[in-house]
């Protein structure tokens, strides 16, 4: 796995981990990761709670430096990434309790996606506003533009934050549990939105989730983490009883459903 597999298009990977280890608040979180991701790939990142999924995204964002090895994105070392490169990574953080009374409108939230590319001392231009408007259209919420963000439902807020990431005109989209904590119809809607964006814009998407069955039908590959990379490959390759049992225990059940696999694990903790 040292040299990344070259795809049919013959392009170089957009993200690489070379024997990279990371610690979070002093405790090791991920050990000796080696794998790479190709441009335009849709990668699902799965694993139990505390397996290092969020740490992996934060490492790519350059928010934490590796304790050993190397992580690169766009051929640059992640933790020394310049701001204009960071602006090309769209990030949807794990749903946190947004202060419902924070003074900000939907449109202002989306427009913040432009701030990184704008740089200091520059005000948003008409072009930035157009990009923000277009992003709100993409997620299907143009009519809520002037509403205070706090008045929206959880699913709508998620879509606004995805629009914020899209307004950055990213090459890479990092999504941390985007479908957690929203109801089932919203989950389906969010998933088809992300899938459509991936297909239309050739975005490289990293989709972190503890819910294997949500992502397995839509991804190109799955990476299974448990403080290290346990397995990476197509859903069919990764979602086998033997592989999953090593992480989730022998109680794991894998069934076939309409050509795909359906997995039942005993890991029912929701963050």
């Amino acid at each position, binding site marked *: 796995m040292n040299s990344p597999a070259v795809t049919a298009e013959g392009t170089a990977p957009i993200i690489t981990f070379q024997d990279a280890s990371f610690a979070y*608040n002093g405790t090791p979180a991920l050990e000796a990761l080696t794998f790479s991701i190709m441009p335009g790939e849709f990668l699902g990142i799965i694993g139990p709670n505390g397996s290092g999924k969020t740490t992996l995204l934060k490492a790519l*964002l350059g*928010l934490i430096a590796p304790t050993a090895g190397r992580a690169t994105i766009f051929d640059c070392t992640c933790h020394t990434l310049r*701001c*204009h*490169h*960071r*602006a090309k*990574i*769209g*990030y949807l*953080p794990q749903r*946190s309790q947004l202060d419902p*009374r*924070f*003074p*900000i*409108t939907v449109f*202002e*939230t989306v427009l*913040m*996606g432009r*701030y*990184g*590319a*704008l740089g*200091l*001392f520059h*005000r*948003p231009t008409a072009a930035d506003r157009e990009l923000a408007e277009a992003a709100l259209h993409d997620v299907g919420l143009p009519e809520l533009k002037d509403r*205070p963000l*706090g008045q929206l439902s959880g699913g709508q807020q998620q879509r606004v934050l995805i629009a914020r*990431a899209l307004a*950055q005109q990213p090459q890479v989209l990092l999504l941390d549990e985007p479908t957690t904590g929203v109801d089932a119809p919203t989950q389906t809607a969010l998933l088809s939105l992300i899938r459509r964006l991936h297909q239309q814009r050739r975005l490289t998407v990293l989709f972190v989730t503890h819910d294997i069955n949500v992502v397995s039908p839509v991804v190109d590959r799955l990476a299974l983490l448990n403080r290290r990379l346990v397995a990476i490959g197509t859903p069919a390759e990764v979602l086998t009883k033997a592989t999953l049992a090593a992480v989730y225990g022998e109680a794991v059940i894998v069934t076939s459903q309409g050509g795909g696999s359906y997995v039942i694990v005993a890991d029912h903790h929701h963050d």
Partner: protein
Amino acid sequence: MTDLLTYGFMQRALAASVMIGTLCAVVGVFVVLRGLAFVGAGTAHSAFAGVTLGYLVGINPMAMALVFGLGTIWIVQALNERSRTAFDVSVGIFYAASMALAIVFIGLMRTYNSEVYGYLFGSILSVTPSELWTIGLLSAVALTCLALFFKEFHFIAFDQEMAAASGIPATRLFFLLLNLVGLTIVIALKAVGALLVFALLIIPAAAAYQLASRLWTMILWAVGVGLTSTIGGLLLSYAFDLPSGATITLLATALFFLAVLASPKR
């Protein structure tokens, strides 16, 4: 009441009220949104320790207040980076230690110095022309900085990690914001006092938070409440012969509760 304005001390007090009321309200908006209230309180107390040392050794007390106030912020930030000490904890340590220092410094003074107590409780009616110039100049510096990084401060207050992830030098700008909070406190120290400056920083912004759903309207409400409190409090204190700092604080508090009652967000 109009002949009041012919007094030089009253003119200076009103000018100081307008500048400090505006500055504290605008900076206070970011303090309230980013949850920095305790940092404000801690900085006020260490700035007061600086004032006492200034009087003890005969250095300009406002300069010493600036050194102590910003010094606290720099050390708190360093502790947070190096040893991951939580802001609340290290600010709390400085809060207590700087009060202890102030008491020691006052104890070392051989004579009773009423001016020192002016910095504790505020003495807006004794602001000198040169102090007024300092207040004006430093307020302009602080407000210019806020204007320059306005969009970034809004983003950092909203979600600092998201701001950092999307290519904003969030850590450095957050540190700048902390320094602006320290600077604001030092500017307001003489007029409203170390014990009450905190009120002017927090209360107008907290009242505005109840009323506004946009940042700009929140700032306008905060400035409105801030100026009503400082100017109104000053006139009330003169009319009824009450201590000015306390009157300003109590008026601001009353306005805050009015805002809570009127809040559309309840």
